[in-house]
């Protein structure tokens, strides 16, 4: 570990004892202590690590963040742009702290939807049984740091057969130089259904850090849809680790969007543990300036008759950089797996850069796996088509850039989220003429 990195870690972890949950007797304290030890023992990643070769976190390691001691002042009106109208349930965290006043906690149709800090005590058995099950608490330096700070977040439990109305978890940053460690635990029992919107926004453009761990456990036949919207400030650092485990015939559909952050990284690890599981993973990065967004996904087909479809798209302007590493493992017993992966990348400037790498490892003999990666500019034929209808070249380019991203966004079943993403796309691509 470099000295810079260890200084960063020391400063980050030094605020550890400030946390109020360090009440004596809470079972989580042991977990935190172990993770703290792991955090110190594990090496922080550098570009010398194969998994981090394109993503240099040294700008992050040079920063000294503060522990989030309190929520910044924020009125309800300033959250209006982020509202998900279809979600009767909203947990709002300001600078890492749960703010009931800005949240909506309604009857969840028989499900449990509450702040994790509360669930640690009220539903200790259930939390204890699943926490760290999909993302090992000490599995990586960032998971260890997150667990050392394990403090609050989302707890969502959908019992058997329950259909949960959409849940919105909103993380708002109001302060510079703060590091937050959100933790999300979602348990979908057999045949339940839920929709989760995991949302990161800021009301300023300064530097701060997010290091989140989210875990989703889907039981037999459960259906989970998960929208992950990373729209942090353009100077933020965002490290996300998502672990998903699908039991027999479970379905998981996700869209992960990277619009914000100076450097963002998402590690998505999905395991199809039971036969007949299905997942659809969409990813969209829209980058400009000096932004870097890195998605490392790992789909583990560990059971037969599973299917996975993954579509990752990046639009990269200026001197920005997108990284996509899509690993798919089909284990020996995972016969009749059907897997398709597409990585499409649009470069809008000469200095923009994309590193896209599919990584297929197939150990079963009766499988269908397709993958493809393209990196390029807008098709001349497409631009010409629109110009031949009277649109200026810039309008034509803006519309096609917008269309490149909008194709994914339109798959979301929540109109308010679609509208919000389209608005950002419209503004960022300059496609101001068309707002659907």
């Amino acid at each position: 570990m470099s000295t810079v990195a260890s200084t960063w870690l020391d400063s980050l972890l030094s605020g550890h004892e400030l946390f109020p949950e360090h009440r004596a007797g809470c079972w989580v304290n042991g977990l935190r202590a172990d993770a703290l030890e792991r955090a110190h023992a594990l090496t922080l990643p550098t570009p010398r690590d194969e998994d981090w070769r394109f993503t240099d976190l040294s700008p992050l390691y040079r920063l000294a963040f503060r522990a989030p001691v309190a929520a910044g002042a924020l009125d309800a009106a300033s959250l209006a742009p982020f509202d998900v109208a279809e979600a009767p349930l909203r947990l709002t965290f300001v600078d890492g702290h749960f703010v009931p006043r800005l949240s909506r906690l309604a009857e969840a149709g028989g499900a449990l939807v509450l702040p994790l800090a509360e669930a640690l005590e009220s539903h200790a058995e259930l939390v204890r049984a699943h926490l760290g099950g999909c993302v090992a608490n000490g599995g990586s330096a960032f998971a260890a740091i997150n667990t050392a700070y394990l403090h609050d977040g989302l707890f969502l439990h959908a019992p058997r057969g329950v259909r949960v109305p959409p849940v919105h978890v909103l993380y708002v940053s109001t302060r510079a130089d703060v590091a937050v460690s959100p933790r999300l635990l979602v348990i979908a029992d057999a045949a339940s259904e839920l929709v989760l919107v995991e949302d990161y926004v800021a009301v300023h453009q300064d530097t701060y850090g997010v290091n989140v761990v989210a875990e989703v456990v889907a039981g037999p036949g459960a259906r989970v849809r998960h929208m992950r919207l990373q729209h942090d400030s353009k100077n933020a650092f965002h490290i996300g680790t998502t672990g998903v485990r699908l039991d027999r015939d479970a379905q998981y559909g996700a869209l992960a969007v990277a619009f914000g952050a100076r450097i963002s990284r998402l590690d998505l690890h999905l395991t199809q543990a039971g036969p007949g599981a299905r997942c659809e993973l969409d990813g969209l990065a829209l980058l400009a300036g000096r932004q870097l967004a890195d998605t490392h996904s790992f789909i583990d087909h560990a059971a037969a008759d599973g299917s996975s479809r993954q579509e990752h798209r990046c639009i990269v302007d200026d001197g920005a950089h997108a990284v996509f590493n899509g690993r798919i493992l089909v284990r020996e017993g995972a016969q009749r797996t059907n897997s398709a992966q597409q990585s499409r990348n649009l470069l809008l400037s000469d200095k923009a850069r994309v590193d896209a790498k599919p990584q297929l490892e197939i150990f079963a003999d009766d499988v269908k796996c397709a993958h493809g990666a393209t990196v390029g500019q807008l098709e001349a034929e497409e631009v010409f088509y629109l110009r031949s209808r009277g649109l200026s070249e810039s309008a034509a380019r803006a519309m096609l850039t917008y269309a490149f991203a909008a194709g994914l966004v339109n798959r979301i079943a929540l109109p308010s989220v679609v509208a919000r993403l389209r608005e950002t796309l419209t503004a960022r691509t300059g496609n101001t003429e068309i707002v659907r």
Partner: protein
Amino acid sequence: MSQSPGRELLHVDGLTATVAGKTILKGIDLTVRAGEVHAIMGPNGSGKSTLSKVLAGHPAYEVTGGGATFLGANLLDLEPEERARAGFFLSFQYPVEVPGVANGQFLRLVYNTVQGARGREELDPLEFDDFVRDKMKLLEMDPAFLDRSVNEGFSGGEKKRNEILQMALLEPSLAFLDETDSGLDIDALRVVAGGINALRSADNAVVLVTHYQRLLDYVVPDYVHVMEGGRLVKTGGRELALELERRGYDWVAQEARAA
């Protein structure tokens, strides 16, 4: 054909063009007047589609000689969008899909952009909706196509209808229709041809670029040109198309070589 010749819309004179260093057009002469229907026929690779694209301003093609005027102005000086605004329309053989952009909104943007450039009144969404639905009836198009993404998931025939719908909206003086009949079944062909005929007037003209003569049963040409090796090697009336249908293209090529 009208009795007195209409005004000259397009005049192409000795036009040559290359793509990626390869000469495709080797001296095209063509005059199209208002009120006329022309058909440009020829085997695959003869340069038919290239001629349409060069005249519409496709940036991949380089004009290396000759000229083209449209309504008296130098067509080749204009950007593709300026040609469209001036009244030149190209219906694509393979229309482009634009996912995420509703067809209705696209059509309105295109319509208003061109209307604005022509100094005419633009329509707000409600006005346009009535207007476009009316035009869609002409092509027996379901209004549901307004809500779908531009050409995305459209069948071949639906794409072609959508092309002619854009022609109906933009009211071009001159429309080049590139292989508009390909991918159409006989019922769709009849509908699309009916649409094209309904849009014809004494003030505009249509150039049908086609491999087969079957569209010409419905949209009857005044002139049929045969293209071969980058040149228009023979011009005749409607009967020439029927002869081509019977005898194929080889004899025209042989005749052209002999001449």
